[in-house]
């Protein structure tokens, strides 16, 4: 039996005093993709944020390779690559700068090759020196995705990654995910559209 890398058990969350979910448990091994689905407001975003410790959970544990992630938050954060509802791009920086800065903010040395590679995976090479402010919505989303790819993190947390993407970009994302999983990475994505080869966890059902 392969032992789980990420184990979540009995997780419960409240938002603004409202119960969002209770007693949520699942486990993921390396190379697995978990798709969170469910109605709007069922708690997909909340779950992702709780996993990233951005929102405190009321009960339950999150374990990474057996160790409770609350015990060493910084080490845990180093394992995560995050894509929120919002892109988190700085409009005044260029697409490439945005990714390089994000890399260094993660405490990694800036890795120009990896950034160039991530940009080209999302067909952004021609746009890499444009200020993010002047990009279209889908182009911005692609930059944010390239940031995730460039982050070299074992666990990707993606909130509706397909939003605003055109078909080729969706394909690029699926390829990126496949490569990440093949390298033994994990990913959890909240989504309303189907993702290739994902295990599905329906919230609020």
């Amino acid at each position, binding site marked *: 039996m392969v032992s789980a890398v990420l184990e979540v058990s009995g997780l419960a969350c409240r938002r603004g005093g409202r119960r969002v979910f209770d007693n949520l448990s699942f486990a993921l091994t390396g190379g697995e993709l978990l798709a969170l689905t469910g109605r709007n407001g069922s708690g997909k975003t909340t779950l992702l944020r709780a996993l*990233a410790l*951005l*929102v*405190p959970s009321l009960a339950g544990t999150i374990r990474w390779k057996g160790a409770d992630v609350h015990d060493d938050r*910084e*080490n*845990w*954060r*180093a394992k*995560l690559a*995050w894509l*929120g*509802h*919002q*892109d*988190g*791009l*700085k*409009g*005044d*920086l260029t697409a490439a*700068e945005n990714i390089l*800065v*994000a890399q*260094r*903010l*993660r*405490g990694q040395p800036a890795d120009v090759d990896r950034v160039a590679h991530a940009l080209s995976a999302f067909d952004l090479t021609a746009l890499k020196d444009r200020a993010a402010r002047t990009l279209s919505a889908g182009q911005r989303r692609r930059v944010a995705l390239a940031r995730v790819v460039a982050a070299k993190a074992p666990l990707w947390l993606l909130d509706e990654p397909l939003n605003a993407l055109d078909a080729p970009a969706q394909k690029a994302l699926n390829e990126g995910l496949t490569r990440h999983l093949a390298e033994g990475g994990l990913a959890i994505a909240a989504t309303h559209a189907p993702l290739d080869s994902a295990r599905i966890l329906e919230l609020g059902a």
Partner: protein
Amino acid sequence: MGFGALFLRDLRLVWRRPGDVAVVLAFFVVATVLFPLGIGPESNLLARIAAGVLWAAALFASMLSLDRLFAADYEDGALDLLLLAPWPLELAALAKCAAHWVVTGLPLAVLAPLIGGAFGLDDRSLLVLVLTLLVGTPALSLIGGLAAALTLGARRSGALLALLALPLCVPTLIFGASAIEATATGEGFWVHLAILGALALMSLATLPWAIAAALRQAGE
């Protein structure tokens, strides 16, 4: 590492074009010019209030640009990335305030003697003016940063806390201004400067934690 990256990112955001710092300086001058216009041109009166004017303008300059210190990151989702960086958020808070200080406090301190001269301060007072600004403005950046972090999000209590944060500037302002006064009247300014330094160190030692706590709240 991350500290430096954030610090430099903020500097780069501000320094995207060189004219941006000039704007802060120009604005500082305009702000000080308003006082003679309001009070009148008598030069001995102006010399007496110069210390207050310059410090009030410095406070204003800090507040005006601090307002958006975290709000921009909060609104475009970049704050989440900060909260998720694998190093202490306290350092992030410090880095942002430091970057802010470099592009406002520092240029202000350099420019202040010119304006002080126009207000008729003597050379010795000008020197003290620069010293106090150098020592005191970091505290303003930190306190303003706290107010900015507290007003993120909707919390009504944020209002109250911000209201409390601003008066924290008062000691800094008082000792900054009074050091210059003391010089003008021939007393020693070292005591004031020392207290100012102590205040700055105290802010440095405590406020990053407060700011980080406020930011974590906002991230929820």
